[in-house]
């Protein structure tokens, strides 16, 4: 063997040794990942919020990310990808990102069941995702200008039934929860939805002031979203939906107490993953969030943003959203919201 050949062989041996050790390392780490389920999460998790920072979904997601980061010792990073009423971020998390459990979606009623019901060809559907856990919910409140002539919701409803063409109302989007909340209420009192006028706004921060300033008559939002203008004395709340009073507004009667039955639309937020995400990941999130919703510090945070804890594990969560979709689809078709 010539010296040159010897040297090149030595070089090859070194190269082979490095490659073998790399392969070995890769194999070991791969086994490690598959062998022990508790290894998840082994790196940073992206938590996609499909709205801009500061809204209800965002605040809940940030509180959860904070808790889970500490719980798991890995950073859970909230990434805001706003646009299209929540469709842009959801499409990214459920369709563009890998379904390896490292991209979670802060899912919300407006970009799931309502989107599916409100659009004929929604960019994302229930089938694209694994509903993992619901975290919180919010009651809808019916707000009018502080000095509006109606003293209660029953009287207001009577006026609307007689004068539907005079009712202007603000919404968070063409197929968001305001639209569904109002469609359901008008259906309940027998008023003509098609004659009323919807003013589409960017969200609560734009919608509630329009009612406070007298430019529209009614705004339907979560309690937390109306709270600042209520405290400033610019609006009054005539009723909340649901079968019990809101824990944040114990003095405001429900619609049911005022004789209007069947208002079931509510706001909720939770976590979902792309279809095909490992079962172990789903279980891990379910367990951690179940524990989180017993944590007094987390509950305190929810209370500060006027969101009620509403834990539901994957199976129950999925069932409820399916039932909700069927109901909203029927409502949207009947009222001509579906486009």
């Amino acid at each position, binding site marked *: 063997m010539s010296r040159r050949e010897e040297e090149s062989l030595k070089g090859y041996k070194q190269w082979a040794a490095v490659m073998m050790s790399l392969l070995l390392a890769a194999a070991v780490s791969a086994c490690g990942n598959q062998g022990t389920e508790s290894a998840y999460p082994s790196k940073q998790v992206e938590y996609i919020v499909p709205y801009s920072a500061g809204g209800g979904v965002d605040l809940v997601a940030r509180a959860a990310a904070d808790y889970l980061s500490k719980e798991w010792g890995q950073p859970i990073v909230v990434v805001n*990808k706003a*646009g*299209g*009423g929540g469709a842009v971020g959801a499409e990214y998390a459920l369709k563009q990102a890998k379904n390896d459990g490292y991209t979670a979606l802060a899912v919300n009623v407006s970009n799931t069941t309502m989107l599916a019901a409100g659009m004929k060809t929604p960019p994302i559907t229930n089938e694209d995702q694994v509903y993992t856990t619901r975290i919180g919910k919010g009651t809808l409140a019916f707000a009018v200008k502080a000095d509006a002539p109606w003293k209660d919701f029953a009287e207001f409803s009577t006026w609307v039934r007689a004068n539907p063409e005079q009712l202007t109302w603000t919404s968070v989007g*063409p197929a968001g929860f305001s639209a569904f909340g109002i469609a359901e209420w008008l259906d309940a009192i027998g008023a003509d939805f098609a004659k009323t006028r*919807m003013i*589409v706004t960017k969200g609560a921060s734009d919608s509630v002031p329009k009612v406070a300033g*007298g430019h*529209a008559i009614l705004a339907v939002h979560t309690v937390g979203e109306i709270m*600042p203008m209520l405290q400033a004395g610019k609006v009054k709340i005539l009723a909340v939906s649901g079968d019990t009073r809101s824990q944040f507004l114990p003095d405001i009667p429900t619609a049911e107490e005022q004789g209007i039955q069947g208002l079931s639309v509510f706001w909720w937020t939770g976590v979902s993953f792309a279809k095909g995400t490992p079962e172990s990941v789903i279980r891990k999130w379910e367990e951690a969030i179940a524990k989180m919703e017993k944590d007094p510090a987390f509950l305190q945070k929810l209370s500060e943003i006027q969101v009620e804890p509403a834990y539901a594990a994957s199976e129950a969560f999925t069932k409820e959203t399916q039932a909700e979709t069927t109901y909203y689809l029927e409502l949207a078709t009947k009222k001509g919201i579906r486009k």
Partner: protein
Amino acid sequence: MLIIETFQLLLAGFASALTPEHLLMAALGALIGTFVGVLPGLGPTSAIAILLPVTAVLEPTQGMIMLAGIYYGAMYGGSTTAILLNIPGELSSVPTCLDGYPLAKKGRGGPALGISALASFGAGVLGVIGLVFFAPILADQALKFGPPEYFALMILALTLMVSLSGGSLVKSFLMGAFGYSLALVGLGPSSGMPRFDYGVPALVGGFDMISIIIGLFAITEVLKGIDEKRTATLIGKPGSVYPKKEDLRVSAGPMLRGGIIGFFLGLLPGCSAAITSFLAYDMEKKLSKHPEKFGQGTIEGVAAPEAANNATSSAGFIPLFSLGIPSSPPLAILLAGLMIYGLTPGPVLFEQNAGFVWTVIASMFVGNAMLLVLNLPMVWVWVKLTRVPYGIMAPIILMFCTIGAYSVRNSMFDVWVAFLFGGLGYVFSKYKWPVVPLVLCFILGPLLEESFIQTMAMGSGDLSIVLFRPLSLTILLAAGALLIISMMLNRRTQQRLKEERDRGVDVA
């Protein structure tokens, strides 16, 4: 009563602005802004455009404090290059060149810089005082602004924009239309339906504001810089930056007058700092006992336009915050910054985000004070920086642009958009097509559309409701009046710019 309340809000703003982390943000903003501002040719507009994505990752208050710092820092940096190198970073610095550069040639660049910093500081104080008096009046009207009023406001903003960008009205209008058509891509603000996406998934989310701004104002500047092979040559030593008693005595009057003119005209939506600094300069020349010395290096000739320039910029925050109307290109980009933080400027901003607004206002004061404390002793450092070869600066700026465009939505699409608009911006500037109408129509177009649809819903499909509401009618009439005034003032400024170009001032 209202003023006392506002004063309390301002004090709370100061308490927040003076916390260590907010002080740090203001200082960082002022320093970085000055740094970008002294780079030859890069003015406040490109400084803010380059650094906008950096601040976008911060929490809103910190981000806006930093942006305001960058704005003031870059304005100050622009004065430095105007005086020492005869390079105005922005049109509004042109009058500063007229006497500042001759002063620098005489070895009196230092006092000129000192006076310019003092004038800026004084004008900043004036701006804050003005905001304290004006803001409550506007905030009180906040809830009276409904869709028809916003619609009228948008008409006002867009009219002024087209008339103010200088040059040909037809070109401005076409650029505005182009900007608006870009804004149409993506999900409709009212329908929520995708449109003009041509089946391309990346287009469903629409174009990102930051990537377009980075392209048009930062990448274009770099391309122009490479094209012009920018080099800075310094004439003489600037001397001590601390003005003499005599300098202060002669410039006190011009500073005060310039500041007042600048402030009050700056309140008119759409009145830019270029207009007021020329007015202040020309007025001092008329009032002076020795008008023949203007242009040969008089300290008054620096004090008046600098004070006017900065007072207009501070006053510009009033129409910006309260009506959402930016009066100058850098404020147009600050408007984009506000929208990125989810804060739509308008009468409601003072009502709903009082804490935020007053913290930012207080931080402007802090930022101006910091410029005075930090920059005067450091003037030599800045001067040396202007000598960094462009071949080194250009790639660094481009790197920032790329990271910035990518980081907003974590998408490569936005990076390509930024570079595409960088190239387009270069072509536009070469053939003198104004880009400000494009950006403003892109930013305000969706708001115009939204308020139009809302107004139509309110009026059951009848737009004439805009004419029958006192407030919206007043705004429309004001739009007409302001259009005439601003066209007159603008014609005057263009004439002055032309004169100075003919005399050999390097006007961008």
